[in-house]
């Protein structure tokens, strides 16, 4: 294999390049990304970065890393098309040949059909985060549209910085897509204690320069309206090239697309859940990096083990770290344990374990799930001594 081209220089694209070298790949690596500057990580954008963090601390690696490892970076460069017949990608009139192509184009903010969207800002890129950071001075009124992870992390930071915050969520509970009802309730209570107004079951109908109007007719005055209602995967390139796309770029358990010369990873990839076999798409650092490592091993060494990694996720909101091991389906049931752990079940199978500030239980769950032996309810029986602590 002579040249691997990676489209997208985010978390997963970077990891693929780094892992290829680590696995001993000695061909050319070219990574093309449309954002400016060095590849960086997004999680701190809604956390430490807004609280005085530096751009340097976001960088995945310094420039010298890319030089030392002979990873060629083309930043500020948009890939317009993939020409599969000739195994080339097209940027600004230039054609670049690949022997293997990795699509790591991530996702972009979802912009639903709401009037006045131009009065809101998103929080996906460093560019957007920097603009928000600059605006968060002298106590402003912040309105957050969407009570998901990013909206809530942002709300917690804005409160900590002394701004007044209102979160409006259309669903009846917070983070409904990803966590159980008891967890949603605990976080709603937490944010309310922090002084944030949490509005549930009342979505935003219209945004204007002074705030937004909710479905109920209520008007929320804001100086800054953050739109955080989810993302859409960047699949257009793949679709145009005739690759199979369904909620994401469809890959098999080796993370190969419908074209054997093309892999896809991270936020843009729809892959078979190793446990249930159903096609899933995850938006997490874990998925992006674990996908990248598997693809790198396959390209560098011909490794043919299928993707089996256990999903994990975290979200920092004020002094609470939510940790999730595994993946629950939307209809999975929940059981709350005495120590606050929430177990999710599909039938009798534990699908996910949700904890707050409890690394021990989180890691027990991750290790247990990785062992391949199904987790049992007993594993999480808390002894009275632990409950007392």
């Amino acid at each position: 294999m002579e040249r691997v081209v990676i489209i997208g220089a985010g978390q997963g694209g970077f990891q693929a390049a780094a892992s290829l070298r680590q696995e001993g790949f000695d061909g050319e690596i070219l990574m093309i990304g449309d954002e400016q500057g060095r590849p960086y990580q997004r999680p701190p954008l809604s956390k430490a970065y807004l609280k005085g963090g530096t751009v340097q601390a976001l960088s995945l690696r310094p420039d010298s890393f890319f030089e030392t490892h002979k990873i060629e970076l083309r930043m500020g460069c948009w890939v317009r098309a993939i020409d599969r017949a000739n195994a080339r990608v097209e940027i600004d009139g230039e054609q670049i040949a690949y022997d293997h192509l990795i699509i790591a184009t991530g996702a972009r903010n979802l912009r639903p059909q709401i009037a006045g969207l131009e009065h809101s800002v998103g929080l996906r890129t460093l560019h957007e985060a920097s603009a928000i950071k600059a605006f968060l001075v002298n106590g402003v009124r912040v309105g957050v549209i969407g009570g998901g992870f990013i909206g809530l992390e942002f709300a917690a930071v804005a409160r900590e910085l002394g701004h007044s915050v209102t979160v409006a969520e259309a669903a009846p509970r917070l983070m409904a897509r990803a966590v159980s009802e008891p967890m949603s309730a605990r976080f709603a209570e937490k944010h309310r204690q922090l002084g944030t107004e949490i509005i549930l079951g009342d979505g935003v109908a219209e945004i204007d320069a002074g705030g937004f109007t909710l479905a109920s007719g209520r008007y929320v005055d804001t100086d800054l309206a953050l739109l955080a209602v989810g993302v859409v995967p960047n699949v257009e390139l793949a679709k145009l090239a005739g690759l199979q796309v369904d909620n994401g770029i469809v890959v098999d358990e080796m993370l190969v697309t419908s074209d054997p010369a093309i892999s896809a990873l991270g936020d843009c990839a729809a892959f078979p859940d190793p446990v249930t076999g159903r096609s899933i798409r995850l938006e997490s650092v874990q998925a992006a990096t674990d996908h990248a490592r598997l693809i790198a091993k396959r390209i560098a060494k011909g490794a043919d083990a299928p993707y089996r990694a256990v999903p994990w996720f975290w979200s920092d909101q004020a002094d609470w770290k939510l940790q999730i091991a595994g993946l629950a389906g939307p209809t999975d049931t929940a059981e709350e344990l005495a120590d606050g752990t929430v177990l999710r079940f599909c039938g009798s199978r534990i699908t996910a374990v949700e904890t707050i500030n409890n690394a021990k239980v989180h890691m027990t769950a991750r290790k247990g799930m990785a062992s391949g032996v199904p987790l049992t309810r007993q594993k999480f029986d808390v002894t009275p001594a632990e409950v007392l602590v």
Partner: protein
Amino acid sequence: MVSITFIQPDGAAQTVQATVGDSVMQTALNNNIEGIFAECGGAMMCATCHCYIDDEWAEKTGDKSDGEDDMLDCAETEVTDASRLTCQIKVTDALDGMVVRLPSELA
């Protein structure tokens, strides 16, 4: 500036200048130290920033963070009494001259 020396499993040593306030993990990344991957960016979720700190420095690095031992249990490299997650160690003047040893990769 504070000097920190990173020693690879094969004995190769690299002394770098660290900025007070950065984590040891960040210092390692800034200086391209092999063997520190820091996939979670310091969120204490991945244990890919695992290193060994010799006894004489252990006191000066401060206590482990809550949950650090639990995370270390999942490190893919060998964990010993000297094990730390370098994302949880802040560089202070007291760490000037510290030696950080990197784990060997488990096959």
